[in-house]
């Protein structure tokens, strides 16, 4: 029996047609996709059917319909980063992950909405559209990979690619009731990913179940010489590890993550998960990550600083929209960027430029990098005693569309439980662990040792197998 939920029974073309029809029905209300090319997807599906008929299937991902976040290059497909400045850009090459998935026979389907250049926690900074949470259309799906999370939750693809710089896979996964995995920094090549903050960015799977995510990770992980931070290590057999018998692990609960600032329903759901693990023989231990409170200022110095450098390439010269009013080279830069970037992207580029500017570099950027060391050391110390950390993914339920757009600092504070993981380069997984009284899904986060995705996935699977959350779907979507 297959471990994954991928549909292998029907013909791939029939499955693709059904997904296209479902998108046509749901997209006016959800808005997960910036772009869809049904003809292209059906051609990929037909090729998969042909392989299957010829007995030449490429493996468990052959014919699986994968949604793609709109910052990952797929040759010949548009790529906008949900920004006006890349409104008409078409990728001339494949990202490493796109190459890998194509090589495994997956169907790369559509371009999924996101916060502009992945800067945001709600998909509201997209130039093109708002995405609505399939569980409550008045609320955001989270971000920045909100389109990916909403599309998976609403059944508009079987699994999706997301990217995570400060929680952009895990927070929308929690908000939309799905599983999202941010791998260890360096496990998945960033070649062909539009860069936001290069020392933090990582591509990962967002799927309905732990095994679905493991199956995709199996394909996309591994060394790639085109990304100089890609780790030169063999890829473990994740799928094999999921079939091994359950074994208790030592679970740490960082006390800084279980405070009064967390919604009581979320705390209760995560505490129930702790009791589940205890009942399975896991040792539970309180640990401390004393520098947790500094993670947000560190992140919001480092990420904008790196972004201000990375986004310098969008200058109206080589591949971005050029202002029609620009009369000289300087105006091509300033006017194209002034017109092309949205307000959150400008805010972060300004913040980053300031933090790196002469006279302020030591006070902000260098100091933040030093505190980053302290944050990473906190985790390494905790992992001397435990195998996995268990925390809430978010302090609150999904917020309403428009609720936080005018208060950037309050939006930034929502990232408190996810960003430390990026600063320390660790793997982190969010999975559903219950529902609030209003019917909104709740996510819990498992954090692993560097490169120990195997323990993370196995620990998550033990919980998933004993609960019904993976089969829960948003109701009332299809009329």
């Amino acid at each position, binding site marked *: 029996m297959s471990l994954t939920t991928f549909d292998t029974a029907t013909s791939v073309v029939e499955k693709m047609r059904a997904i296209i029809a479902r998108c046509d029905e749901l997209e006016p209300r959800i808005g997960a996709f910036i772009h869809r090319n049904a003809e292209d997807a059906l051609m990929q599906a037909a090729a998969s059917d042909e392989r299957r008929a010829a007995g030449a299937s490429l493996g468990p991902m052959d014919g699986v319909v994968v949604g793609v976040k709109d910052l990952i290059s797929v040759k010949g497909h548009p790529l906008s980063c949900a920004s006006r400045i890349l409104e008409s850009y078409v990728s001339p090459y494949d990202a490493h992950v796109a190459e890998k998935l194509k090589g495994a026979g997956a169907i790369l389907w559509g371009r999924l909405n996101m916060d502009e250049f992945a800067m945001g926690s709600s998909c509201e900074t997209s130039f093109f559209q708002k995405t609505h949470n399939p569980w409550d259309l008045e609320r955001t799906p989270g971000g920045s990979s909100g389109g990916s999370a909403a599309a998976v939750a609403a059944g508009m693809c079987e699994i999706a690619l997301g990217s995570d710089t400060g929680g952009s896979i895990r927070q929308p996964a929690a908000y939309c009731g799905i599983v999202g995995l941010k791998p260890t920094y360096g496990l998945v090549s960033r070649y062909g990913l539009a860069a936001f903050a290069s*020392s933090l960015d990582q591509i990962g799977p967002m799927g309905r179940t732990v095994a679905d995510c493991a199956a995709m990770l199996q394909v996309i992980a591994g060394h790639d010489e085109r990304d100089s931070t890609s780790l030169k290590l063999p890829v473990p057999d994740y799928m094999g590890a999921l079939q091994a018998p359950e074994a208790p692990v030592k679970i740490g609960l960082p006390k800084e993550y279980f405070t009064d600032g967390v919604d009581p329903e979320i705390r209760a759901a995560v505490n129930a998960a702790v009791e589940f693990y205890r009942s399975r023989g896991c040792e539970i231990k309180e640990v401390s990550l004393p520098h947790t409170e500094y993670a947000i200022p560190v992140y919001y110095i480092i990420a904008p600083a790196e972004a201000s450098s990375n986004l*310098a390439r969008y200058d109206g010269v080589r591949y971005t929209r050029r202002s029609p009013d620009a009369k000289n080279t300087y105006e091509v830069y300033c006017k194209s960027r002034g017109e092309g970037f949205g307000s959150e992207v400008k805010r972060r580029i*300004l913040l980053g430029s300031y933090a790196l500017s002469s006279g302020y570099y030591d006070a902000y950027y260098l100091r933040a990098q030093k505190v980053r060391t302290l944050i990473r050391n906190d985790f390494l110390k905790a992992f001397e005693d435990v195998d996995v950390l268990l925390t809430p993914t978010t302090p609150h339920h999904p917020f309403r569309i428009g609720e936080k757009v005018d208060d950037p600092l309050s939006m930034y504070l929502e990232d408190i439980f996810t960003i430390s993981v990026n600063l320390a380069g660790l793997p982190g997984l969010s999975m559903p662990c219950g529902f609030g009284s209003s019917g909104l899904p709740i996510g819990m986060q498992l954090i692993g040792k560097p490169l120990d995705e195997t323990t993370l996935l196995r620990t998550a699977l033990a919980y998933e197998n004993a609960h019904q959350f993976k089969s829960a779907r948003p109701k009332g979507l299809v009329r």
Partner: protein
Amino acid sequence: MPDKPAIDIDHVANLARIELSPEEKRVYLAQLGKVLDYFARLDELDVSNVEPSAHAAPVYNVWREDVPAPTMDTADVVMNAPQKRNGQVLMPRVVSE
């Protein structure tokens, strides 16, 4: 960290090469001031003996052989350029006649 971070918004916008409207300058000045105040809490920590982390992975310089290999076609390289001519990107004249 400076006591009262005074942002010269015109200077920063110029460094970032972003043209801002007067309204944007007003809004960003207020919002960034608030965010920088929040950053001041990093001053509470003594980091004098701490090494900075540029990133989390223990990866250092990566070398490869300098071997010529095929690259992208010129047509693909300039396919997204807003203005182009003869396989080259076109920009406004830099040197006046």
